[in-house]
C-alpha cells in the first residue's frame, strides 16, 4: 500500500472530481459527439479504481460497497432491456425508441439516453467488480488470516 505517500494522496484527491466530471461529460455528450455509456462507465470506474489503488481496496469498498455493486450490474441490464420492453408495450418493435417521446426524434433522443444510462451503470460497476475481485483478493486473504490468529 502507498498510504504514506502524501503527494499521491493529494494528487489523487484533486484528480477524482475531474475524472468523474469528464465521465459525465462523455456520458451525456454521447448523443452529439463521440462518447457514450461504455466509455463513460470505464472512466467513472477508473476514478474509483485510482482511489482504491492509492488508499487501498478496503477504503474504496467503503465508497462503493460490494453489495451495491453486485446489484447494479444486473440493474443496468434491466434498464436496457426494460426500455426495449417499454417500446414493445407502446406498440413498436423491440428497442424502437420513437414512441417514447411526443414526436419520433424526441423519442429517439430520450431512448438513447435511457439506454446509455443502463450501459453506464453496468459497465462501471462491472469494471469495479473486476477490480475488487482481483485487487481485493490479497487483502481479503490478509483479513481472514488476522481473524484466524
Amino acid at each position, binding site marked *: 500500500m502507498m498510504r504514506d505517500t502524501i503527494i499521491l494522496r493529494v494528487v489523487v484527491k484533486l484528480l477524482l472530481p475531474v475524472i468523474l466530471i469528464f465521465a459525465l461529460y462523455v456520458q451525456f455528450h454521447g448523443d452529439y459527439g463521440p462518447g457514450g455509456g461504455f466509455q463513460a462507465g470505464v472512466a467513472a470506474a477508473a476514478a474509483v479504481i485510482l482511489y482504491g489503488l492509492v488508499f487501498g481496496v478496503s477504503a474504496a469498498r467503503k465508497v462503493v460497497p460490494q453489495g451495491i455493486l*453486485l*446489484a447494479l*450490474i*444486473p*440493474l443496468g*441490464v*434491466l434498464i436496457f*432491456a*426494460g426500455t*426495449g*420492453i417499454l417500446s*414493445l408495450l407502446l406498440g*413498436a*418493435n*423491440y*428497442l*424502437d*425508441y*420513437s414512441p417514447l417521446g411526443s414526436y419520433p426524434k424526441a423519442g429517439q433522443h430520450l431512448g438513447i439516453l435511457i439506454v446509455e444510462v443502463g450501459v453506464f451503470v453496468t459497465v462501471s460497476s462491472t469494471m469495479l467488480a473486476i477490480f475488487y475481485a482481483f485487487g481485493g483478493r490479497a487483502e481479503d486473504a490478509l483479513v481472514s488470516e488476522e481473524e484466524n490468529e
Partner: protein
Amino acid sequence: MHLPALQVVIPLIAAALCALFRHYFLAWFITILASWLSFAIAILLLLQVMSRGVISYELGGWVAPIGIEYRIDLLNAFVLLIVSGVGAVIVPYAQKSISQSIEKSQQSWFYSMYLMALTGLLGVSITGDAFNIFVFLEISSLASYVMIAMGPDRRGLTAAYQYLIMGTVGATFIVIGIGLLWAMTGTLNLYDLAQKIPLIENSRPVLAALAFLTVGISLKLALFPLHLWLPNAYAYSPGVASAFLAGTATKVAIYLLLRFFFTVFGGVEFFQSTPLPEILFVLSLLAMFAASIVAVFQSNIKRMLAYSSVAQIGFITLGISYATEIGLTGAIAHMFNHAIMKAGLFLLIGAVMFRLGSVKIEDMAGIGRKMPFTMAGFVILGLSLLGAPGTVGFISKWYLALAALQEGQWWAVALIVAASLVTMLYIGRVVEVAYFREPTVKVDQLREVPSSMLLPSFLLVGAAVYFGLDTSLSV
C-alpha cells in the same frame, strides 16, 4: 408478433433478475419460468414459419440491411426448438442436482449463467446479422466457461481455461472471417451477403473468409482435430451443465456451419467447387472412428460420453459433406436426435453421480438393480446412440447411409455401420458392469433418484423413442 425479440429477451431479463435477487430457490423458479416460456415461444415460431413462411423482425424499427434483422426460416426455427427444448427440460432436474453440488450462495450465479448461455445460443440461431452472431456466440461461450468452472473438483477450472483459450481463438477466427466479408461487401446482413457474395465469390479475400469461418466454427463445434477442449469440458462440469452444453452448444455451431455454407456462400454449387466437401468427409470419418475408439478406453463415463459426442458430430458433418438433399436431411435429423440423446444420457449419468458420487465405470457395478429406471433410460438412449431400429438414432443413420449410397459409396455405408458397432462396444461395457456384476457394498445402499430428476430424463428418453417411430417432425 414480437415473438422473435421476446425469444432472446426473456432469458436475458431472467438472467439479470437471477443475479439481482441472488436467492437460490427464487433463481431456480425464475429460470424454470423463463426457459419454459422461451420453449413455448419457439414452438409458436415454428408453427408460424410452417404456416406462413419466413419471419423477419427488425430490431429498433431499423430496416435491414442497415438495422439488425432477426430472420427465422424453417432451419433456424427448428434449431430454436432444439435449444429451448433441451434448455427447458433440464431445469426441473437442475434444482436437486445443483443443490447437491454447488454451494447455496453460488447457485443463483449458476442459474444466471445458465440463462445467459441460453440467451446466447438462441440469439445465434435467430439473428440474421453476422456480427450479432459473434456477440451472441461469445455471450453463450463465456457463460459456459463459468458453468464448467463450477464443476465438482478442481479439474473443472483447467477444463474451463482450456475451453476459454480454444473457444476464444475460434471466435476470433469467426470475426476475422466476418470482417473480411464486410470489407468486401460493406454489409453484415446474412441475406444481403448472400446476394452480394456470388458476384465476387472467387476473389481471394472471400475464399480466405470462408477458410477462417470454417476453422472458427469447426473449433466451436469440436470437429475432429479441433475437439481437444470438449472431453474435459463435458467431463468435469456440473451434470446439468454437461447435459445442456452437449445438447445445445455444438448443435448451434453446426447450424452456423450450415447457414454460412449454404445460405451466405451461395449454396451447394459453390460449396462443391471448393475442397471443403472432401476435407469434411475425411475428417468426419476420422472423428467417427478415432473418437469412438478412444471412448471405449475411458474409465470416466462422462469422458466416454464426451468422446462419443465428438464421434456423433462426425456423423453430422459427414451428412453435410455430401451436400445432397438426403445427406443434409440426415445431418439435420442427427443434429436433432443427438441433442435429445446426449442431453438425456448426461442427465441420467448426473443422476448416477447424484446418488453414487462417482462417475467411474468400475464403481457402477450392479447399479442396474438399485436404480432400475435410471439405467433402463440409459440403455434405451444407448441403443438409440448406436442406431437401433425404433429409436431416433436409426432414422438419421438410415438417411446418412442413403446419402452415401446415392454417391455410390458402398464402403462408406460399411464404415457408418462399423462406427456404430464401435458405439455398441462402449455402451455395452457400461451395460455389462451395471447389470451383470454383483453390486458392491456402496451400490447396495443406493436408492432410485427423486422423480423430479427422473421425469425430465424420461421426457428425453420418450422423445428419443417417439421421434424414432413418428418421423414427421425431424425429417
